[in-house]
Structures are given as C-alpha cells and as structure tokens.
C-alpha cells in the first residue's frame, strides 16, 4: 500500500471493509454448504456452483485482504491472477466435459421446479457476488490523497 493511504481515516475505512469482506466470505461458505445439502446436484453442476462461489470468495480476499485493489500497479500480480482465473475456468470446463455433453441437472427423478431453482441459483449467486465485488471495488475510498503520477519506465534510462 502506498504512502497516500496511511491516514487514520483511511485505515478506519479499511477496517470496516475488512469486516464486510469477512461477512461475505462466511455467507459464501454457508451458501455452498446449503446448496450441497439441499440439492442433489450432478458432478458438473456441483463443480460449477462450488467453484464459482470459491472464485468470488477468492477475488474478495485478493482484492481487499491482500489490498490488490490498491496495488494494481504491479503488472505481475495481474498476470498471476489472470492465469489463475483461466486455470480454474479450465478446470470447471474439464469436469463438465467429462460428465457428459450436456450436464445432467439431477441424478435422479425429482420435481422439475427444484431443478430450475437450482440452476437459477447457480447462475444468480455468482452473478450477484460479482456485481457486489465490482460495486465494492469501484467505490472510491473516502479520503484519497492525490497520488503523484509516476510512469512505469518501459526502457532502462541510462
């Protein structure tokens, strides 16, 4: 974190943010457990939903707890995160591919409404988490001193 973010008001703002993120992580875990217990999902859907929620939780940890939101300058971190994202996306794809051409929504016969609800949840949860993430990240800190703009030198100056 750079010097401009050392003011005590900013730290107070951060502490609140940390607590919110902690709450989000707990809620994400609870949702994962509830989905696993309440809905008998196929391997493919369990993978998609479970890993989507994990991905959202992970992005909160990286963005807020690891202050990536304020450290974006480091291009290497960005690359690590991007590669990780593609890796897990590929992982989900692999599992879905292995389980069949089209994912089976349920392992055995059950009322259609549950299947629809489960798939809706599977889409809505990650989506709402993502929206929340973006909202939190784009919200400016209350006190943010003007940073001196320093360009990243691409060539070594002799």
């Amino acid at each position: 974190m750079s010097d401009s973010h050392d003011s005590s008001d900013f730290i107070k703002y951060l502490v609140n943010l940390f607590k919110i993120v902690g709450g989000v992580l707990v809620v994400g875990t609870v949702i994962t457990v509830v989905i696993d217990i309440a809905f008998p999902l196929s391997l493919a859907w369990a993978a998609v939903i479970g890993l989507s929620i994990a991905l959202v939780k992970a992005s909160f940890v990286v963005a807020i707890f690891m202050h990536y939101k304020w450290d974006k300058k480091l291009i290497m971190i960005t690359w690590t995160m991007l590669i990780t994202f593609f890796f897990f996306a590929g992982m989900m794809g692999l599992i879905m591919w292995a389980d069949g051409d089209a994912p089976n929504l349920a392992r055995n016969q059950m009322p259609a409404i549950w299947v629809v609800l489960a798939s809706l949840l599977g889409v809505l949860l990650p989506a709402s988490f993502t929206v929340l993430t973006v909202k939190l990240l784009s919200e400016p800190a209350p006190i943010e001193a003007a940073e001196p703009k320093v360009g990243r030198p691409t060539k070594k100056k002799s």
Partner: protein
Amino acid sequence: MEIPYTVKPRPDTGLYNAKLGIWLFLASEVMLFGALFSSYVLLRVGAEPGTWSMGLMDIYVGAGNTMVLIASSMFVVLAWAQLKQGNLAGYKKWKWATIACAVLFLMVKWSYEWPSKFAHYDVWLNDAKVLHEKFEKGYYESASHIEPGGAEHGNTDAHGDDVEKYIEVIYTTRFFKESSDKSKTEFKKAWENGTLALSGHINSYEEAQIDFSITRWNADFGVSKADATKVLAKFSEDKVDELLQDGGELYQKTDYETAKLAEYALGQAGFTVALSVAGYETIKKHPWMWGTKRVNEDIGGKPRVKSLVFGLDETHHKEITLDVEDIKRLSAYEPKHSTFFGIYYTITGLHALHVFGGILVMLYNMLPIGLALWHKDREQYTNRIETFGLFWHFVDLVWIFLFPILYIL
C-alpha cells in the same frame, strides 16, 4: 551500503522490496498448488465409477474449518490495521486471535479428521457371497428391517436379497451419494467380481497365541558363547544354561509381538528356533492401521489372525465376523488405500504444512526477538506484518478452493 526501498516503495512499481518478493513467492506457490489441483481434477475425472469416495467427507467439519480460516484471515488484516495506527497492544490482541484460529484449524485436522480416517477400513472379499452366511449370524435382524417388505421373507430367508440390499445402501452412499441406474449397475458388477469395498471399523480380532521353542544353538554361527548367553538371558531368567545346551521350550502361548522379537534377537545370536500356533485369543484393543499383509502372515501354516469382527455402517455397532481366508485386501483410509486418499493427503497435508509454517512465523513476530524491529523501525515491522498477511491470505485462498473440491465434488 544501504539497501534501497526496504521501507519506502519504489516509485515506479509502487512496492517495497519485501512486498515484491512475497508476490513472486506467492506466484510460485500458485503454480505449486495449481499443479496439485489439476492433478486432483484429472484423477477425479478419470476415476472409474464406484472408486471415488464421495460420501466420506463430513461437510460440516469442512465448513467449520473454512470459517476458522476465514476468521483468521480477517484477524491478521485487522492486526495489521492496528499496527498502521501505531497501536501495538491492539495488534497483539488480533495476532493472538489469528494464532488461536490457526492452531484450532490444525487441531481439527490433526486430532480429528486424519486420525478418524486412519481408524476406518475397507475390506475387499474374494467372494462377496460369503456375506449371506455371515449375516445369518446375528445380523439378520437389522438386515431384514431395511424395507418394510423385508420381514415377509420369514426368518429362514437370510440368503435372500436383504443382505445385498443392505450392502448396496452403504455402497451407494459412499460412492454415488444417491441411488441411480449407474450406481445399481456398478454395485452389481462390484458384488460379482470382487471389487466391492466394504467399509467399517475393526472391533476385535482373533490373534494367534504362539508356542516358542529353541531347537539348538549353532556354535559355528560366529557369535561367542558368552554373547549368546547374554542375549538368551534377556528372554529367560532361570533356564539359560539348559536352553543353550539342549534347547527346549522358551514361551508358551505368548503373543505375536513378543515371539517375533525373540525370534529375531535369538536368530542373530545363532539360535535355531521354532514357532507354532497354540490357539487363538480374542483381542479387543483397536489395531492401528492394518493391511492384508499383516493379517495373512502365516505361522506354521496357520494365519496369524484367524478372523476379524468388523463393525459396519456409520455406527460401527452392527458387526459381522470375517474369516481371514475370505479377505482379499484390507486397508485403512491411508494414502496407499486408493488414488483418492493419495491425492487427498498430499494436498491437505501440504496445505496444513503452510498453516504450520505460518504459525511459526507469527510466533516469531510476537517474541521479543521479532518485536525488536518494531522498536527499531516501526514502519519496517508493519511492512513485515503486511507481507506475512499476504502469505496468510494465500493459505486461506488455497483452502477456499480446496473446500468445494474435496467436500462437494
């Protein structure tokens, strides 16, 4: 020479040295765990149906541990925020809370999750049909209550479908979670061809009692008579001279461990010994990690262990007695049990090692030797705590992905 940017960030990257270093380290960690995660996925996807234990993990324990790690992740960042405000006492409070969470996480793993697996067994039978006969002895009653229609078969019909149905329920929960056409086909196959893994707990076993006698002592073995006497004196108090001269009985009905120890030690001292099975004794203590090799070890043509009393189901109270000759393979839920447990212990073990390392670093930072930096240069100490926090969040991150993968898929 003064090293630049140990405290102040480098203007072009916006990072001080340690932070750049820790991010590079974390990048390498991502690759390490990435390789393990993708191995897990490939093994999971390539597993034959009915070989991947899905119903074994207790999701509530896993979720509880996730909560503990989330809490510790939050505490470590709150500790850092306290330091930023110059409040050392507040920092210490949160840091101890973090350490407590980390220790709790490891305790759950070390004293509950792993050991309880080591005490559970799978047994593969040469022919699953012997179960019909085994169930007849004392198991019929519970087996007949599986479904309301079961009792109609009458008490003479223990060889009917009840046993198979009962075992199928256990098998399906374990490997498929829910019953389906696929699970039914797989169960039939497993029942027929001997790949059926029956899970349970060894409640007691019949172990051989061994008669141990010394045949003779070889004078030209290369051990002096004085040394041989010394060795023999460890096993026999009064008959040393007699045994050395003529041989004879050393132990009657002793236990296996004692007999094998004596066999080895006396063999090294030039004695020829003979072991024979005198009878069998029921032992109730819990055996620690048993394999078929140990069960099948023969003494004088008789198995060392004659039979096992195996507790089935989640309660382990419904017992069946299995004869050793019916057992094809017996294995605790240890790494060599199957691919699943191999990769499970590898990944969770490596993660636990990271947690343990984190605890050591946190303790160091709390000791006077670590705190000396705070008194010397507050900003540098705060940065050190921040970089540790980055590592700790990464450990939390790994668990965030491990949780759904291990407990849900």
